[in-house]
């Protein structure tokens, strides 16, 4: 069963009619990915440098926008005396617990609704209705219910994470090719084995989309809830600094938020590349 793919293409160009220069296609090597990666760093660096220069030249008052170097300096100072670390740890704790709770419940509910008809009928309608409500709009109500403590912040993050996880788990399971499940059945796989070998991996791409959206919604919830009321946390650090007109600390808070978002995205990308390695072949073609 070997395919010999020789002879055939040769016959195309008959000896006599040797075609002269048939539209020479320029085969220029594309710039390597490494070059492009460096090139993409140029404009951000230029922007930061311009910001630094504008601040140093006194064109913008440091009360409005401190120079990047000043932000870095205050960051270094707060990191050394442990304040930044404490705020960061608190924010991260809230994010992780909120994402775990909201994501876990979303995953469970989405799986039940996606797998069982009864679950679909019972769970999906209320979730679809509730999802029309912007979850940050629930803040006043949550304040009444939960007060201003940790549970408020964690609940808000969990709410933000729940919906994308639920919706994508549900859609991921529903989109699984029924024929693959059938083939697994003919291979003698039990229902539990089909769940493990077919449903779970089949829903994983959608799950990663949900996770990415959940991270985004979770961060947003965290920022909002920490700025409403908190005693510790990056958001609290920024609000406190605002009262004392420490603009550099406020900007530092923004930088930390941005870096956290970036780090979580990177983490997710790495996990995705590992878990969805089988898609490489699909992308290559």
């Amino acid at each position, binding site marked *: 069963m070997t395919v010999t793919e020789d002879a055939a293409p040769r016959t195309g160009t008959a000896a006599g009619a040797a075609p002269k220069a048939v539209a020479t296609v320029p085969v220029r090597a594309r710039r390597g990915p490494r070059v492009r990666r460096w090139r993409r760093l140029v404009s951000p660096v230029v922007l930061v440098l311009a910001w630094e220069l504008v601040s140093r030249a006194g064109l913008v008052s440091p009360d409005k926008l401190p120079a990047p170097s000043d932000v870095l300096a205050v960051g270094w100072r707060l990191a050394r005396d442990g304040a930044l670390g404490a705020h960061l740890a608190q924010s991260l704790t809230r994010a992780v617990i909120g994402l775990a709770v909201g994501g876990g419940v979303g995953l469970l509910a989405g799986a039940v609704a996606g797998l069982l008809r009864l679950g679909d009928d019972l769970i999906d309608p209320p979730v679809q209705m509730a999802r029309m409500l912007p979850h940050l709009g629930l803040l006043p109500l949550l304040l009444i219910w939960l007060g201003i403590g940790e549970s408020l912040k964690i609940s808000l993050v969990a709410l933000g994470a729940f919906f994308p996880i639920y919706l994508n788990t549900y859609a991921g399971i529903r989109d699984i090719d029924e*024929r693959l499940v059938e083939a697994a059945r*003919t*291979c003698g796989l039990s229902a539990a084995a089909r769940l493990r070998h077919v449903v779970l991996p089949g829903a994983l791409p959608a799950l990663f989309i949900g996770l990415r959206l959940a991270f985004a919604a979770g961060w947003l919830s965290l920022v909002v809830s920490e700025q409403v009321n908190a005693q510790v946390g990056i958001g609290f650090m920024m609000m406190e600094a605002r009262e004392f007109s420490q603009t550099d600390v406020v900007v530092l808070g923004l930088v930390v938020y941005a870096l956290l978002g970036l780090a979580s995205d990177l983490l997710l990308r790495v996990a995705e590349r590992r878990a969805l390695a089988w898609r490489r072949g699909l992308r290559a073609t």
Partner: protein
Amino acid sequence: MATRPTGDLTGAATAVTPVAVVRAVGVRRAFGPVPVLNGVDLTIAAGEVVALLGSSGSGKSTLLRVLAGLDGDACGEVTVPARSAVVFQEHRLLPWKRVADNVALGVAGRDVAGRVAAALAEVGLAGRERAWPAELSGGQSQRVAVARALVRQPELLLLDEPFGALDALTRLRMQALFQRLRAEHRFAALLVTHDVDEALLLADRVLLLDGGVLVEDVPITVAHPRTTDAPGFGPLRRRLLALLGVPAGPDAQ
């Protein structure tokens, strides 16, 4: 042997040869008000290859799915061997499992890896264990699907247009492969196909499904190994095509 009584039991088991591996009696299946299978009786002897012909929409796939145990709403009595395997028209490999893991799906016992490697070697894909399904061509994927069936050492192979989606040359190679595997493993098979030549080449018996029942049972006695231009195929081909409602040539009008 796993007897699977589905729905109303028609106990009238006809006298069949004791070596029958498939025995189906009075199989009925309807989608809504429309009956697709209307009392199909079918026996397949051990090691026998039976081709199932029929026009599009006549219920061939429906019957195969009943035999494969994939249709819970069919009525009738169906007996198939516990060791059966199915090859579909599409390869139906799990894209998130490497070739070897796809073949090994649901296989238990000793030396699974060795058996998988042997099955892959038999279909000409030795050494491709670590490939992803997405990296394979259509014919290679279908060969993996055949290996996935083979590794179970089936007594019965159910094939639903297994080579229908392949190009003509690959199909010829797959037919040759099937003949070789069949000679070696002696499995019984039900081969659903649109291709009269394929049926003549591979089958010991050709069944024709029409109006929900098997209307024709044509034994093919030409000795193996066969080629499509074997003498004796001409009249058979014309007869089968006529039964399918296709004029076999300009003179058939």
